[in-house]
């Protein structure tokens, strides 16, 4: 009996602990299996061991080289928009770059945090990409270097939009630079606007969406006129970023007290109003259904920004040229409120092996007007350089057949000037996720607003021990 008990206890211990054993450290070890010296894709063996669903790292470049310069990003953005163009001008330097695509933003922070802690790791990142949702986490730490250490002066930054500099500034030090500015707009279907609003001209359509209440009325009108076929948005969370961008306070203040400010409470109300009036198709942002609605007549508009236009809307429009899918049937108007959405910053890490190269890449990608013109022409990304934008807009580069000929550069340009940086904190990504869950519960009628806010606070305080709720 005793032996059996012991055996049982040990078996329980073994199985229980097998999960605890894998959680704490996921520092990738150097994968030595790769023998080819050419640019090859290599799978990272160490990160795959923890949980099955963590995507494998995709590595471009030669990681075995002595002077390998590691750049980390959660997707191929930096590769396609920056390094590709850097390569053309500085082929010798570009050879040293080892680009690691961690595959999806969900696990990006987890992966690089472990690496940043250990500068002796052969795969230690020399440069990291940081997204708006968590840039503060890295800039407000000793893990990133001020750009002045890399030889980038204020004069170099003169053409940037001020908000992109503010976003990466901590204690007066700029610690990251971005090659893109990301003003947002409302993107709607021309044919549907013609049908239900009588016009597809952006200036006239804007009248129907000039403020939140008018937008709601217009949504109801479209729904009624289309016999319920066409909804204003795909999901209620499409308007989230607009509200979020106008926050005055971060999720928590200097005393680490968690607050939900009126802007976000208003968002909850508006989301509920959209849901109750049946103005959405009930999708969640980034889900397959949400993306599929881009080519369907059931969705009138999306709230999107510069990169959204190309990589989300165009990519999902179901066509490559005018006439295919909904390609060419879109137009932009400012919508109820100006806002910005996302953006990617580059930062050099504290243990960066070659500050000169880091400075060179950042200077080329974020300060060099000629280079940025090339980036804009090549990828149609809205670059963070006023001079380049003005020149390109004059050249007519912005006339975009996807938008029925509308000049997107000219359109975004005044919007970009207007962007004011909202308050942020390093935990934005996860806290906003938790807020979305509770908003959904409220919107779907599973709980009332006060309970939702209370549950949100309880959950966030539970996750972050240094925060308190009022």
């Amino acid at each position, binding site marked *: *009996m005793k032996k*059996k*008990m012991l055996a*049982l*206890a040990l*078996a*329980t*211990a*073994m*199985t*229980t*602990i*097998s*999960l*605890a*054993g894998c*959680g*704490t450290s*996921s520092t990738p070890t150097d994968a030595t299996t790769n023998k080819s010296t050419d640019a090859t894709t290599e799978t990272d063996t160490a990160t795959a061991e923890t*949980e*099955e*669903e963590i995507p494998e790292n995709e590595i471009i470049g030669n990681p075995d080289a002595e002077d390998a310069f590691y750049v980390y990003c959660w997707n191929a953005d930096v590769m396609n928009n920056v390094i590709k163009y850097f390569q053309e001008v500085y082929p010798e330097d570009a050879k040293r770059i080892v680009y690691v695509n961690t595959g999806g*933003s*969900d696990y990006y922070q987890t992966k690089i*945090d472990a690496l*940043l802690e250990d500068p002796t790791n052969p795969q230690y990142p020399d440069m990291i990409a940081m997204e708006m949702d968590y840039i*503060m986490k890295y800039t*407000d*730490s*000793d*893990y990133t270097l001020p750009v002045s250490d890399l030889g980038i002066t204020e004069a170099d930054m003169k053409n940037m939009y001020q908000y992109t500099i503010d976003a990466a500034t901590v204690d007066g030090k700029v610690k990251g630079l971005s090659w893109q500015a990301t003003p947002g707009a409302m993107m709607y279907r021309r044919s549907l606007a013609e049908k239900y609003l009588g016009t597809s001209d952006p200036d006239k359509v804007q009248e129907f969406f000039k403020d939140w209440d008018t937008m709601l009325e217009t949504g109801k009108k479209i729904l009624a006129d289309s016999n319920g076929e066409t909804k204003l948005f795909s999901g209620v969370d499409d308007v989230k970023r607009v509200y979020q961008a106008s926050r005055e306070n971060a999720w928590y203040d200097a005393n680490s007290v968690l607050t939900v400010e009126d802007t976000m409470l208003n968002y909850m109300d508006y989301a509920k109003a959209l849901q109750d009036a*049946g103005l959405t198709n*009930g*999708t969640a942002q980034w*889900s*397959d*259904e949400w993306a*599929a609605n881009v080519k369907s007549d059931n969705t009138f508009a999306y709230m999107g920004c510069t990169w959204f236009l190309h990589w989300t809307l165009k990519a999902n429009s179901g066509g490559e040229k005018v006439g295919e899918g909904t390609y060419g049937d879109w137009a932009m108007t400012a919508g109820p409120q100006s806002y910005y959405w996302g953006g990617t910053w580059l930062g050099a890490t504290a243990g960066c092996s070659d500050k000169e190269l880091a400075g060179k890449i950042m200077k080329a990608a974020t300060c060099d007007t000629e280079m940025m013109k090339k980036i804009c022409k090549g990828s149609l990304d809205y670059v963070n350089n006023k001079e380049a934008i003005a020149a390109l807009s004059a050249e007519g580069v912005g006339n975009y057949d996807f938008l029925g000929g509308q000049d997107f550069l000219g359109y975004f340009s005044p919007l970009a000037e207007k962007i004011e940086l909202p308050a942020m904190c*390093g*935990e934005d*990504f*996860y806290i906003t*996720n*938790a807020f*979305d*869950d*509770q908003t*959904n*519960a409220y919107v*779907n009628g*599973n*709980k009332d607003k006060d309970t939702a806010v209370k*549950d949100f606070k*309880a*959950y966030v305080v*539970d*996750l*972050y*021990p*240094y925060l308190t709720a009022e």
Partner: protein
Amino acid sequence: MADISQKSNMGKKRKTVEYGRYGYLFIAPFFIVYAIFQLWPLVYTIWMSFMEYYSKGLKEIGPNFIGFKNIVNAFITTGKEGAVLFDTFTFKALGNTIFMWMLNFVPQILLSLLLASWFTDTRVKLKGQGAFKVTMFMPNIITAASLAVLFYSLFSINGPMTQLLKNMGAIPGNYDFMVHKLPTQILIAFIQFWMWYGNTMIVLIAGILGINPSLYEASRVDGANSKQIFYHITLPLLKPITLFVLVTSAIGGLQMYDIPSLFNVNQGGDGLPDFASTTITMYIRKLTLTSKDFGKAGAASVVLFLVTLIISLFFFFVLGEKEDRRQRKSRKGV
């Protein structure tokens, strides 16, 4: 060779001792691996649960020894309403896990028992048994991750199953499984059930085949019907196997991770909607990797360990003890 033959001449007792020593060498690798990869993390996790150890942003705080505070916090919330026992996210996650496991296990063991008794019934002699068994075992071969993704797309808002049910009028036109708690939990439980009933059935068949056939013959000679045979011979003699299935399933079920973590989750890895499909292991993962509160994660792991231990011991005593007692009694009688 000469050595061994000499030693063997020294006496029989000595010889057995020598072989025993080699035995220890053979089992040593297991214990070494166990000590490094399982025992040490186990001890370390428990040690962590006594620490205040978290990161604020990228700044690490701790580890400072704070005694039982983490573990107490895992059991009790102290808010405006005073201290409430079990009203913590640790226990909410644990509750979700146990609920989803029960939803999966009860129908699973019933169906598996039924199928196992049909397949082993010598009077029915089911044809094409192999084909049936393979078909039923098949879901177990598919990776849990793929199943979770597959079911998610089947039952998402525009998924084929959702559309089918809408067309049949079974659910209202704007229904979404993924925004309701119970349907999400039922779907996760169903995936588990569908994955594992074949496996449980095979184990039970093995158990039933291990029962002495003469018992069945004797009962049939005595005129027992199938029902009586099942309840009075198969079930009582199958108890050790049932106990095994129950305990392994409970331990596996409490660590439910892969399916719920890929099924209906947000970008931060929380089970949707509103925490309902977050299992205890997902919660521990979130604490370790996202918020980096190792102390709290350690405490949650200790709670999981304790609950697993209690549940296993409970099953062990309820189902196992009686048999032991009966045996002891019968021995006394002899």
